[in-house]
């Protein structure tokens, strides 16, 4: 039997990972629901706001990106465009080389995960340290994020405490949550002060104002700015919105959807290099394409409206069970099974099994603040995988089925014969779709044609 990597992952996942992801995702979904009900008790209001967010993100993106680039430049930001991950990494390496950057800190950014920035910079001898607690937790273990908002969702407290001790973030084992945070804080403080440069993403880029919005709970974005001389921000170009006015809509949606908070603790706006001595004297902004232009021109354009809140994965029955690492890509969950294969470009087929990791239950679409029709996109992805002739494990050949289902006479003649199957030892079947069904389930008795017979006589 061909193995199905995602399904196999589910069978082998560590119980502690499973319970960590299961409970954290369920709790966050519940918190999201509570806070929206508190914020907008009127029926339909949350939904209306989601609709507005979708419409704003649907506005002429190319024009807004041009405008954002102009405004940023006007504010003294050096703007670069990167066609793909490699170009973006080289641009950053070049800046580092020119400016003599040896130590850098980073503020949580999925875009930098997407391009594999850390390992690239490390291979060039740069010390790059994650300053978001969750990101630090996974960085010291050499792991990737398992969730786009809560990168260490899969980890339990005791195991984090042990890892902190092992990697000298803490002097000794201490799994008191407050102490874990304090230890990270102490460790990071030195890194903040030693950093020549800070790398951030951008939750939103305001085209009119030429500013970026950084949304965090830990204040690490703001703190990194205090020490570093250079600030490089990088984001997919879809992060551009027309102006600060529209940002209000997103700020009402993002934190509530992501963590169940009315607002995150810090919302920082950066509109160019600082004038004060203790803020970055130079700022760069990199607009990353990396496959996005192709997506924008395709029937998957809606996925570019994503605001990376993670609500869809928190709500997803499959994600809750298998954790983000099962998806073998930067973006997991309902978002990821659409986006990751598309971003893979020529290597699309390597990820063509991802869209299969979905029961099509539609729960994600109910919570997505950008109102992205995720299940419809998942289905179109499956169609695309088929059209591209990707080989997907456990895929079923539907030619015999459609042959039969398009021949009503034959259908009527054959369906009643299924009653004969009641006398066959089908339980012994171990292979193929039937074998996979029977491994964990019984079969009902077959009663082919009996309804039609009744209808005719009744």
């Amino acid at each position: 039997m061909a193995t199905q990597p995602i399904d196999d992952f589910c069978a082998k996942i560590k119980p502690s990972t499973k319970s960590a992801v299961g409970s954290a995702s369920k709790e966050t979904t519940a918190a999201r629901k509570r806070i929206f009900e508190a914020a907008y008790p009127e029926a339909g209001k949350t939904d209306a706001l989601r609709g507005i967010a979708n419409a704003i993100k649907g506005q002429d993106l190319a024009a807004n990106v041009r405008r954002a680039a102009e405004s940023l430049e006007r504010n003294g930001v050096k703007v670069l465009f990167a066609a793909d991950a490699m170009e973006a990494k080289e641009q950053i390496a070049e800046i580092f080389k020119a400016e003599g950057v040896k130590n850098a800190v980073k503020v949580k950014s999925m875009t930098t995960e997407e391009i594999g920035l850390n390992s690239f910079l490390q291979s060039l001898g740069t010390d790059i340290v994650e300053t978001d607690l969750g990101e630090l937790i996974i960085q010291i273990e050499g792991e990737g994020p398992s969730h786009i908002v809560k990168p260490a969702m899969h980890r339990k407290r005791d195991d984090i405490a042990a890892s902190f001790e092992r990697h000298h973030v803490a002097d000794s084992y201490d799994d008191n949550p407050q102490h874990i945070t304090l230890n990270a804080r102490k460790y990071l403080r030195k890194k903040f002060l030693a950093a020549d440069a800070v790398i951030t993403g951008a939750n939103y880029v305001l085209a009119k104002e030429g500013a970026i919005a950084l949304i965090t709970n830990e204040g690490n974005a703001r703190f990194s700015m205090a020490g570093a001389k250079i600030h490089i921000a990088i984001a997919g170009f879809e992060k551009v919105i027309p102006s600060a006015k529209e940002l209000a809509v997103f700020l009402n949606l993002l934190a509530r959807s992501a963590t169940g908070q009315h607002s995150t603790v810090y919302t920082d706006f950066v509109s160019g290099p600082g004038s004060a001595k203790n803020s970055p004297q130079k700022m760069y902004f990199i607009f990353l394409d990396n496959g996005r232009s192709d997506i924008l021109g395709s029937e998957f354009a809606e996925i570019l409206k994503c605001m990376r809140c993670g609500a869809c994965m928190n709500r997803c029955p499959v994600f809750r069970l298998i954790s983000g690492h099962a998806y073998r890509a930067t973006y997991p969950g309902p978002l990821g099974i659409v986006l990751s294969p598309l971003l893979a470009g020529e290597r699309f087929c390597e990820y063509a099994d991802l869209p299969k990791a979905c029961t099509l239950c539609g729960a994600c679409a109910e919570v997505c603040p950008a109102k992205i029709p995720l299940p419809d996109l998942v289905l179109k992805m499956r169609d695309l995988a088929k059209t591209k002739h990707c080989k997907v494990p456990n895929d079923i050949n539907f030619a015999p089925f459609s042959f039969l289902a398009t021949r009503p006479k034959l259908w009527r003649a054959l369906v009643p014969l299924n009653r004969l199957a009641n006398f066959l030892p089908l339980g012994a079947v171990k292979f193929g779709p039937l074998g996979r069904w029977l491994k964990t389930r019984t079969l009902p008795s077959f009663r082919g044609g009996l309804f039609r017979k009744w209808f005719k006589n009744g």
Partner: protein
Amino acid sequence: MFNPPQDRVIGKRVNFMATCLCDAIFDDAAKAAVEVLRHFGAEVVLPKDQTCCGQPAFNSGDFASARKVLKSAFRAFSENDWPIVVPSASCAAMLFHSSKIAFRNESESERAEVDAFASRVWEFCDYLKNCLGVEKIGGSFSARIAVHNSCHSRGTPTPEALRSLLLSIEGVELVEFEGYDDCCGFGGTFSVVMPNISSELGLAKVNAISAAAPDIITAPDTSCLLHQKGIADKNGIDYPVMHAAQIFRDALKNGGLL
């Protein structure tokens, strides 16, 4: 999410689409649905050339096969333009929502045909309540019932119709259980493409429902119940399932109304 078209065809003369599962396995659910429809004044015909809605192929990404099967359904139901009542939320959603995706790149005339067909399709409970205007099933059925919504009824009038119709029956008590709107992991072909994930979700659902100790588990779909029941049986869990139509029919019978 899987919202039906705005202006749907209404009428008391209807086509019944049994679905391939009822045709092959759950004959009694289909029978019950027809008896209930007739009881409430619908005139029911059963176009004989019907087979399947194409959902298994569609959900697997084989849109070409799905289109062939859908076209065959269009032909099978072309003798009149009456509503088409389906005792399955997922087949209904396939016919009024997903069919449009399957045909999105086809010719304008084909897409018009799909739209026209889609606007005739009603899920059984939705049809009873919102087309026939049934508010009260009547009769009696003494049971504590757990309702599994069927994910393809998300965003449709079906869950509300199903609940209110059940509650209109004397003796029915609905039981709540944890994760009532979570998927049971069936997902059609998902159940055999991702068997471990599907089974684990299924067992969690069966356990959550069993913990509420209902007498009956019902749904507007036979498929989710087939999966849940299969898992319960394999694990030796007592799990009596009935399609919603069977409960309505039995209630009417118990009340001497049918």
